[in-house]
């Protein structure tokens, strides 16, 4: 019995540690990668594998099977959310980012005639 318990505990420690590893990796990627597209990779790793490994690791620790089922549902939901979210972020990147206000929090009519500035202000000056 104690051997089984120890094995289960070891399983938990192992997988949770691995999950945390993915979280740390994901965060590091979020902080260190150069642009949004690459950071997206980091995010999905933490989402899918981080939570997944933690859930798998916790399975032996739950009191009732129902709780374990809930954990698996949570993982499934996170997977779904992660898949859709990364799709959406990628679409935003390809279709054009939201038009944001400039540094002062206002939309300034851009001086040049470029219709859409990367930095986010609108090139819709009234003067021709």
């Amino acid at each position, binding site marked *: 019995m104690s051997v089984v318990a120890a094995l289960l505990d070891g399983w938990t420690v192992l997988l949770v540690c691995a999950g945390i590893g993915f979280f740390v990796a994901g965060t590091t990627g979020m902080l260190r990668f150069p642009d949004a597209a690459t950071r997206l990779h980091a995010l999905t790793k933490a989402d899918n594998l981080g939570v997944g490994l933690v859930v798998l690791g916790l399975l032996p620790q739950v009191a009732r099977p129902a709780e374990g089922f809930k954990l698996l549902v949570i993982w499934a*939901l996170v997977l779904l959310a992660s898949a*859709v979210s990364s799709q959406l972020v990628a679409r935003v990147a390809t279709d054009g980012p*939201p*038009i944001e*206000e400039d540094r002062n929090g206002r*939309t*300034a*009519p851009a001086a040049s005639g470029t219709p859409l500035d990367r930095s986010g202000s609108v090139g819709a000056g009234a003067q021709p």
Partner: protein
Amino acid sequence: MIPALERAVELAIGAMLVGLALWSVLVRPRFASIVGFVVFGLLLMLAWMRLGAPDVAMTEGAIGSGLAGFLLLSAAARLRCSEIRRARIGAGEPQRARDRSPRRSSIVALGVGCAAVAAALAAAVAALPHPAPSLAPAALERLPELGIGNPVSGVLIGFRALDTLVEKIVLVVALVGVWGLAAEASWRRAPSVDPSPEIEPIRFLARALPPVGIVLAIYLLWRGATEPGGAFPAGAILAAMAVLVLAAGLGRLPPTAARSLRLAICAGPLVFLGVGGLGMGVARGFLDYPAGFEVLSIKLIEVLLTGSVAVVLLLLVAGPPEEAASANGMRRPEPPL
């Protein structure tokens, strides 16, 4: 070791909360501030869990971080659209926009006031008696009389039922107020959550998630009697699912005048009021549940309240009825000059 760890976690969450709150207030871009607000909601959820209040955490997550975040981003989108339009129309406009923003002196005064209140609160909280006087034991003791096991539900629907009832009426009145913002021409039209223009992933999500969400809402409602959960989080999740379906363009709302819609809005509070009034005749007083039928009455009220909360929250997110959505999916900001 564990207490020290818990203390560290509390300190970390508290520090992040304060820092994030300050940052979201001070940061200039509106979008950043909204993301800050959403993240603040997430962290607040953790804080509520740490304080042992899962009911509050659930509601905070569903309302504060979920629906409110969606609402704020929708509002920000509309504001940006009208700003973009104004940027084209004239150079005179930005000046007026600047004039309307609060003056620096009033901002400073506000900040000083907030800091003073916060400092006074900190001092007062330190001076509060320890352990704090609490009604929780009394609530737990009387809970069996209601036939339910969750003390939070007991307070909400039993001991302080009047407050809950009035809060639900507040929701309805708030919705009427929002509808009152409609233009005369579009009053009676259907409010709408405009479908997003590019919808495949969102549509997939809107097909996959709501069944789970409905099951979860029923589960929370069911568990609400004995465990954290109950009408409000369940209603909020249902509302969120409905918002998702509408945003994916998979459904639309009925017009505001629709009898069924109005019935759904009012059913919860009306039945609550009715059962409460019934108590004057068949039980010990207003808002007392008939003896032997406590659980039945509470279940009936909770189910109907969940429906009403879901519909009202959904309609609050959808906003006042407006002109039909334009072709590219967003509301027409204003008619072209």
